[in-house]
């Protein structure tokens, strides 16, 4: 156990981003048809190297507890309704973030007839995080920069 814990300590000390104690926002992730790349990278955000909790962000289990809906993938027909249901379950004010090129409607692979359209056509998108997939550090930096620029005024 000591090896593991020591490794986590080293990582935590080595993390580059500065602490920002001015906000606390909760993220709910929805996979609307991704290739699982964005999920793998997003999952690393809450590990010690990236540790977004230190920057006032966390990933939560229910959209009812979330300020930000973070969506990956192009929106497939089967996921359009669950995606809208998750958005409707969120308290207002709320934000929508598009994670990865597919969610942004760029270079989407697959049969167009299987998608309802870009995320933008389904929900109002406030934050854009490009990449295929963006790495964990890029996701964290882009989210934090976008939130700073938005001055945390979520859509009502």
């Amino acid at each position, binding site marked *: *156990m*000591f*090896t*593991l*814990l020591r490794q986590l300590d080293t990582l935590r000390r080595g993390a580059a981003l500065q602490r920002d104690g001015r906000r606390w926002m909760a993220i709910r*992730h*929805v996979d609307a048809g*991704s290739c*699982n790349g964005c999920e793998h990278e997003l999952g690393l955000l809450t590990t010690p190297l990236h540790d977004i909790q230190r920057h006032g962000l966390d990933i939560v289990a229910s959209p009812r507890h979330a300020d930000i809906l973070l969506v990956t993938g192009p929106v497939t027909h089967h996921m359009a309704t669950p995606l809208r249901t998750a958005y409707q379950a969120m308290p207002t004010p709320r934000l929508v973030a598009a994670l990865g090129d597919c969610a942004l409607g760029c270079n989407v692979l697959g049969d167009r007839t299987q998608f309802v359209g870009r995320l933008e056509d389904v929900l109002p998108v406030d934050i854009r995080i490009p990449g*295929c997939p963006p790495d964990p550090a890029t996701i964290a930096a882009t989210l934090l920069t976008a939130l700073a620029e938005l001055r945390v005024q979520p859509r009502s």
Partner: protein
Amino acid sequence: MTIVEQIDPDRLRAAVSTALADGARFSSAWATAERGWRIALNSDGHQTRVLSCKVPPHGVVDSIIELAGAAVWDEREAHDLYALPFAGHEPLRALVRHPAELSAWTTPVRGDGVHQVAVGPIHAGVIESGHFRFHCVGDQILALDTRLFHKHRGLERAAEGHAPQDALAHVARACAACSVANSVAYALAAEDALGLTSGGELARQRTVLLELERTYNHLHDIGAICAGVGFAAGAMGFAALKDRAQELCRAAFGHRFLFGAVAVGDGPCALEGLSLEALRAGLRELRTDATAAWRDLEFAASLQARLDGIGLLDRTAALRLGVVGPAARAAGVAIDARVGHPHLTTAGIEPAALSHPDGDVAARLKIRAAELIVTWDLLDELLSRPLERCRTVASRAPSAIGIGRTESPRGESVCAVELAGGRVARVHLRTGSYANWPAVAAAAAGNQLPDFPLINKSFELCYACADR
């Protein structure tokens, strides 16, 4: 080279039965737009025989699910996407389509106190989308119906009509975490159809990519099992190790998931500036740390006490369902597509085996740690000399159907490519995740509902790989 046999639909079932009796294994099956139905059977390691038939406009084809339990999903998919009717597959439930009525896709479960628990498609963590419907009495799971294909993107259809190299992108994005395995399977299938053969150098480079993918995935999967019992130190530690493995992939080949490193007829394009020594040294350091971390897990009583006897999938069930990959090997079924592979540098590999292949969560955790040792050794040897530019060579006449097989971190990935006029007429990808999803449902039955996340994590299958 793949052997293709045209056969009358009436004789298909008997032909499959004879082949299986002769020791062949069901490998894949796919339908085509012209009511074609193909069944790929594998024998002597890597010899693939495709039985191909054309189903008349109002005709039916005999189901083979009683001969090969692994074909259940393949037939359901062909029925949903290509409207092929199967005689003897009763009930032929929807798989890719999502009809509203429950009876169209769930097992009927009756009795006192039986209730259903619906989970998903959106799950509580950062997980892919898919729906589970548990039939329970109290906390005990009687049966589980999985409804996947929420992420069906029509990737196979989208690949049709493209030149073989251009269609690769659609196959590669079926799944990020198995992208190398699926891409190499596709490249081998396309090369098989084009009559191209890869030499030893290309085989070595593709093996390096495949084993790097296995490295970060197995580290990830060990961490995921720790997360499944709420053992945070293990989950975080192995996630950090996986992150380091992916950074090594980026430093060496330019991408954390090795996207773009596989090509049809060609080696990885980004060899310039590649420091093999740095990659080899990085892997050795990673191995040291991962070995120490694994030792910590072996002595972590609160983790170990949760694994034995949970999510049992014994050898008989694994064989009946056609289970592949670590899940099969953890149940004592010694199959690994790497063994004897004619186009990869793994022909002489001895896959890891457990002294007690119990087929439970504990065994599926241990097999991954054991397989990592084989992979570390293999990579160290493969990276001992510089990579050189290499290409495939034309060695024989093109054929209509090509098959490629690889061992992804989740099991055998079989890709079939049909060419017409130099373009892809049909591509079908049958991944380890696709093969193993029915086993997750089988392993969950009889367990406590709160143990399902752990059982699920011990298989750690991709939804994207299955849904395509």
